[in-house]
């Protein structure tokens, strides 16, 4: 229960920050702008035929099953919208990652700052609860941001094309998981030195290296055989495959079947990375004096 209270406090405090409200406002603005600008029009009373990106979709009024789109047009709508959802999910994944790293860099720093951490540690709160609760709180914020961004765009498309699917939300969920991988490293950095810049820098570094590490076999080949290649291999090995997870997210967003050969190793590596970072962060906090 304490974990959830701490997580809720992190969310409350973040929600009270003006810049986060501005960011959510900008996302909403982008959604409205897209709604007005995208060439996705449902024509003839939103029943008979629709036009997506200028291409007309066929169908009869009597076949209408999805509001605004004739039944015969649904597969075509899905097909037409595939690139939209893939781009949308990819943008939310990568832009959200960068923004999230910058926006959440100081959350744990503030909780662990002098004058604040003393009060929290004098309460019936265990040190690990403070840390994991903060992690969960940031996870909730990331989830809210991703759902707001992707869900909003899905709503725009529903309004414009009369076609709704929840699949992009699953893609957004993969984005949240990707961000939490990065955030676990940021949290660990914060326990080593209380610095928002260090936390955000660590986040960006893990993000970039993890993208590069997706091609780990190729990266290893850049080094001469011997100790150099071994060291490079060891350094790359623990990094999660963020690009693969992003790609899985985009597949989920368009309802494609997932390739277990891709997902399972990437997912296991991600879980191991997060667990290792959190355990190291907890150990660091447990032995620390404030």
């Amino acid at each position, binding site marked *: 229960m304490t974990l959830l209270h701490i997580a809720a406090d992190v969310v409350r405090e973040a929600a009270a920050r003006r810049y986060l409200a501005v960011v959510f406002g900008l996302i909403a603005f982008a959604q409205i702008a897209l709604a007005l600008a995208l060439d996705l029009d449902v024509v003839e009373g939103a029943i008979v035929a629709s036009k997506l990106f200028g291409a007309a979709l066929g169908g009869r009024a009597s076949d209408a099953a999805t509001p605004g789109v004739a039944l015969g047009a649904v597969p075509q709508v899905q097909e037409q919208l595939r690139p939209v959802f893939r781009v949308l999910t990819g943008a939310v994944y990568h832009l959200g990652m960068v923004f999230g790293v910058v926006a959440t860099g100081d959350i744990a720093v503030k909780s662990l700052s002098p*004058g604040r951490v*003393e009060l929290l540690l*004098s309460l019936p709160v265990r040190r690990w609860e403070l840390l994991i609760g903060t992690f969960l709180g940031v996870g909730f914020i990331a989830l809210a941001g991703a759902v707001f961004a992707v869900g909003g765009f899905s709503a725009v498309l529903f309004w414009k094309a009369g076609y709704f699917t929840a699949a992009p939300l699953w893609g957004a969920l993969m984005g949240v998981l990707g961000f939490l991988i990065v955030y676990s490293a940021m949290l660990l950095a914060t326990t080593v030195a209380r610095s928002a810049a260090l936390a955000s820098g660590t986040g960006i570094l893990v993000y970039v290296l993890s993208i590069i590490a997706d091609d780990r076999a190729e990266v290893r080949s850049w080094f001469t055989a011997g100790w150099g290649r071994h060291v490079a291999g060891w350094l790359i090995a623990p990094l999660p495959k963020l690009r693969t997870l992003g790609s899985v997210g985009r597949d989920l967003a368009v309802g494609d079947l997932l390739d277990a050969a891709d997902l399972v190793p990437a997912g296991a590596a991600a879980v191991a990375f997060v667990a290792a970072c959190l355990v190291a962060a907890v150990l660091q906090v447990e032995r620390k*004096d*404030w």
Partner: protein
Amino acid sequence: MTTQHSARDETAIVATDVSKRFGAVAALQGVDLRVRRGASFGLIGPNGAGKTTFIKVLLGISRPNTGTVQLLDGTPGDVHVRRRVGYLPENLQLPAGLTPRAFLRSIARLKGLTRGRSRAELAGLVDDSLHRVGLEESAWPRRMGGFSKGMRQRTGLAAALLGAPDLLVLDEPTDGIDPTGRAVIRAVIQAENRRGATVFLNSHLLAETERICDDIAVMARGRIVQSGALIRLQAGDHYRLDVVDDATARRSCAARGWAWTTGDEGLLRCALDATDPADLSRVLAALLAEGVTIAQVNRDVRSLEDVFAEAVGIAP
């Protein structure tokens, strides 16, 4: 029904041989301290003496290199013990985006005070605490980012008071607060002590400590250099004796070599060198036998500043 109290029950804090080092700096060096339950205890000392470090060790925020701390019959690491503690840290940093009400609700939740209470009851608890510390109601819905030092201190104290703690640890509670506010906070602390809470006060304001505390300890260079009941530590070596100014009194004083001063009230004021009550009784009996009329006897009381200066080895 009889209630048995053990020695442990009688003490709120027992620190034994507590040492703490930060690299080459010895912040605490073998601190031994006992604070009795229900006491109003003041820890005083010069800057850098180790007072705040000691408080952090007491509450488990820092861990000692050697020694042990017992808090309310438990250890500082025990969350059940910490549930019974209210703490106001020095230089409290409050979440800038939250209102005092939201902040206190958060503290109440973390203290487990929401259990068995409705939202309205919790709101009442929070508002009552804010009322007690004298934070103006107009500030309650405001974000705390714009609060003055005094407002932050009051909010922090309100948070410490939540849940009627058995032990209140207050690190410079009146720092940055105007004289009127200090009086309010002093009254709150005294009321908490009357309720039965043990008060552990760290303040560099000796006058505040003197007004609030019954027991004190002086810390210097990481050691407790003086401790005990304030009344005992402030007691001087002399008694002041006022007798009716007449020929008998002047003769008796002169015979003992006492210097005297005269006042408007027709009294002679002498200083006695009696060092304990037995000495005093003998002298008074002799004076009475000689026919001297005694108006009043007072023990010289030193200021806390004098006690402090003597303890830390500086000239007052």
